[in-house]
């Protein structure tokens, strides 16, 4: 469609600089400087750190996203500042701007570029998600299952604490999470009452705990450290207090610890319900 390009100089003013070229140059230079700086300086401090393979993956993803966002942010921001400085009404003036109503070329270019950007982001996210599940709760039948031996651990959320069951260790139930380092773990997150969300910050793991649901998430911790665990879904009165510290330890230390737990809770283990991937809560009677 033949639309006026819109770059015709208004007749009244002294010759103006070529704003399009000047703005473009500023933006490109700023992007070329800022994007590598952001990627190199901000990228490494993006959450959640390198506590696990999945967490490291998130750092990469977040770096890619912030790297792509920087030029877009700069485009609009510099444009706003530029137009605020150069396209002002003179004091007390009553000038009219040029009656440009559109520009087919710019609009088409914009649509094509944003579409490409968005589609590439979605493709990238999909690939990253399907690689290893990205530490995100993947429901009872995950598509992306990492190969190799996995240590199954059940995370049982209830108002207002997490407990952990180790089915391969006689179904022992503990009040703290301890995991061996460099071992692929298969977390089965479930709930006994309302919806909670198991969030192990340093591990880059988040999975909602739903009653009667087995929400599976894979994670391979890579660092021996203490891990902050919090509930990330509003679950009632003491939601803010539903936190805990987990520990990633060496395989030997894990063996010692789990043997100790089995011995310690042996007498109580028989009172636990039979291990199952999901539990159905008792019917609730409010006010009782």
């Amino acid at each position, binding site marked *: 469609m033949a639309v006026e390009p819109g770059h015709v100089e208004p007749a009244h003013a002294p010759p103006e600089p070529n704003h399009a070229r000047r703005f473009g140059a500023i933006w490109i230079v700023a992007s070329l400087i800022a994007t590598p700086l952001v990627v190199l300086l901000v990228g490494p401090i993006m959450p959640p750190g390198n506590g696990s393979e999945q967490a490291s993956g998130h750092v990469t993803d977040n770096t890619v996203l912030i790297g792509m966002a920087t030029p877009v942010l700069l485009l609009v921001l510099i444009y706003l500042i530029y137009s605020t400085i150069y396209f002002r009404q003179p004091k007390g003036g009553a000038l009219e*701007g040029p009656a440009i109503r559109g520009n087919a070329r710019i609009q088409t270019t914009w649509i094509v570029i944003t579409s490409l950007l968005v589609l590439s982001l979605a493709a990238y996210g999909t690939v990253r998600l399907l690689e290893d599940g990205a530490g995100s709760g993947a429901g009872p039948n995950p598509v992306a299952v990492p190969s190799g031996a996995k240590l199954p651990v059940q995370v049982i959320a209830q108002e207002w604490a997490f407990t952990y069951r180790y089915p391969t260790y006689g179904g022992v139930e503990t009040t703290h999470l301890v995991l061996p380092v460099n071992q692929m773990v298969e977390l089965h997150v479930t709930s006994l009452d309302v919806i909670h969300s198991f969030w192990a910050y340093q591990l880059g793991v988040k999975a909602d705990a739903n009653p009667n649901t087995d929400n599976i998430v894979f994670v391979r911790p890579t660092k021996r450290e203490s891990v902050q665990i919090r509930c990330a879904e509003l679950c009632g009165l003491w939601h803010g207090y539903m936190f805990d510290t987990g520990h990633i330890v060496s395989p030997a230390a894990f063996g010692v610890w789990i043997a100790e737990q089995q011995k310690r809770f042996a007498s109580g283990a028989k009172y636990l319900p039979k291990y199952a991937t999901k539990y159905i809560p008792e019917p609730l009677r409010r006010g009782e």
Partner: protein
Amino acid sequence: MSAVAEPAFTPARRPVWRRLIGFNLLTAVILGVAGYYIGWFIGHQIKGKSFEFMQATDENDVALMLGYLGGVIGFLIGLGFANYPVSRMFGRPASLREKEHEGIGRYFGLCTDHKVVGIQYLVGIGVFFFIAGLNAMLIRTELLHPTPTTVGPNQYLSLVGMHGTMMMGMMTSGILGPFGNYFVPIMIGARRMAFPRIEALTFWLLMAAGFILTSTIFFGGFPTGWTGYEPLNEQAVMGMDSYICFFALVGVSMCLLGLNMIATIVAHRAPGMTWSRLPIFVWSVFATSILMVLAAPMLIGALLMAAFDRTINTSFFTVAAGGSPYLFENLFWFFGHPEVYILALPGFGIVLELLPVFTRKPLWGYRLAVAGMLGVTLLSFFVWQHHLFVSGINADLRPFYMLSTEIISIPTGFIFLCVMGTLWKARTRFSVPMLFCLGWTFNFLIGGLSGVFLSDTPSDTDTHGSFFVMAHFHYTIMGGLIFTFFAAIYYWVPKMFGLQLREGLAKLHFWSLFIAFNSTFMPLFVLGMKGMPRRVSTYAPNLQGLNVWVSISAFVIGLSMLVFLVNVIYSLILAPRRAQPNPWHSKSIEWQLPTPVPVNNFDTIPVFDSDPYEYGTPLTPPPSAEPLPAGG
């Protein structure tokens, strides 16, 4: 257009006590209280095995729900909403116009003048906006310290819930209510809305709803936040019923408001007001109305199911009896995501409507802007499960929702391109409404870019349910809706009230709000990335520094709102100063009408031969001699 002569009909001056008898707010309140107690009484008379524990524990949800229902019905009857159907039922002629020619009294009752309803909305919503804002101040006071100091955990959750629910509920009509009702009929050259009585009904339903939500404090509050997730919803005390009734009533109000707007815009346009000449604000109202009509019934349905679960022991969401909490999440967000666009879209419309006036240029890319709004409208129904990325529901579909969520940024990008195009070589006058529009551009940019992190499933794993999300939607909703809400107030108050707001105070309001807003919500991104969840009254001690910073900034937001209040009280009540007829030199039709706008708006229905953006010096050679296919 000459001013319409004062109405011939002037009611005889009657003594005050006589004027208080009739269908008005006073009667409505009295009948509302009566209706409440009737419902409460009936609720306590229902006997049966299922209801025994309710009776025993004084936790009678049936009674409270029926009380609310009776209260609302009584309130509406008192306002006079039953008069019309009852008159028609008995074959009597019914009044087609309610209170349109009365004095101040028309603001306190059922009035079918869309301009009165607009002002009712502005004041009514403003009151609840300030109540919800005070809740936010209390939340931030609590978060000054990592452990609870000011309020207990229960009160804290109630505050969070009330703040969120009130803002998300009342402010859905934040722009459509006041400015949509007031200006859409004028802008399209109509004398009234399609359904004036329904228009009034939406307002009074919303006020009843707001009162019901506030009354939750008498019933123990509710612990679920604005999302009302099951089965926590099912566990909660009676305060939860307030939430359910509130949101259902808001849903009804929203749905009716949307229907009314769609009918008005489709059927009541003046000659020449073609779809391609429709002011962009009207387009945004149209798009929002589609969302309201299609999304709100989902909310009403979900809440009805929740109400049945709580009262008559159905088990839609009770796991032990075969229900599923996923169902509620699904239904809620199927409403919930369009809902956030119900909040954002009118803001797009305001910005694009105001920019041409202050840049003295036609709107750049009109068709692109319309496409953007309709694109957002359509796509917003296909993204809701991104709220459930980590929930384990339909995990295999996450790539699809990631894609649809990221695609929705394409039509949103159209709006940005139109803003930027309109600013190009503009002659911008930085009046207060323009400042708020520029503020919107910055805020929504940050909000949109942070949304990219949330739409990406791997990245969302870190930020989901954290303060990052909270910062993101405050940037889009507060930075998007509230900034444009104020832009619209500063822009249109001279028309609505014929008075001008003081510019100095307005500028102080803008700058303090803009700076404090960013200083409040920018650090929240960092807090979220450092692992602070939403809706908690306790946090890691090492995060206290940032939290104190955020709280203090939030208090400055509160102060800047006080500046606004002072401005309103001073400029509109204490020292009113008459506004110029068209202070912004706008070419939109509402500014060509006399102030105050006559009851019938137009003596003769106007005929439009262009869109309202005929600004700017024509280019050489003048292509605008013929209607230009704007936007290519």
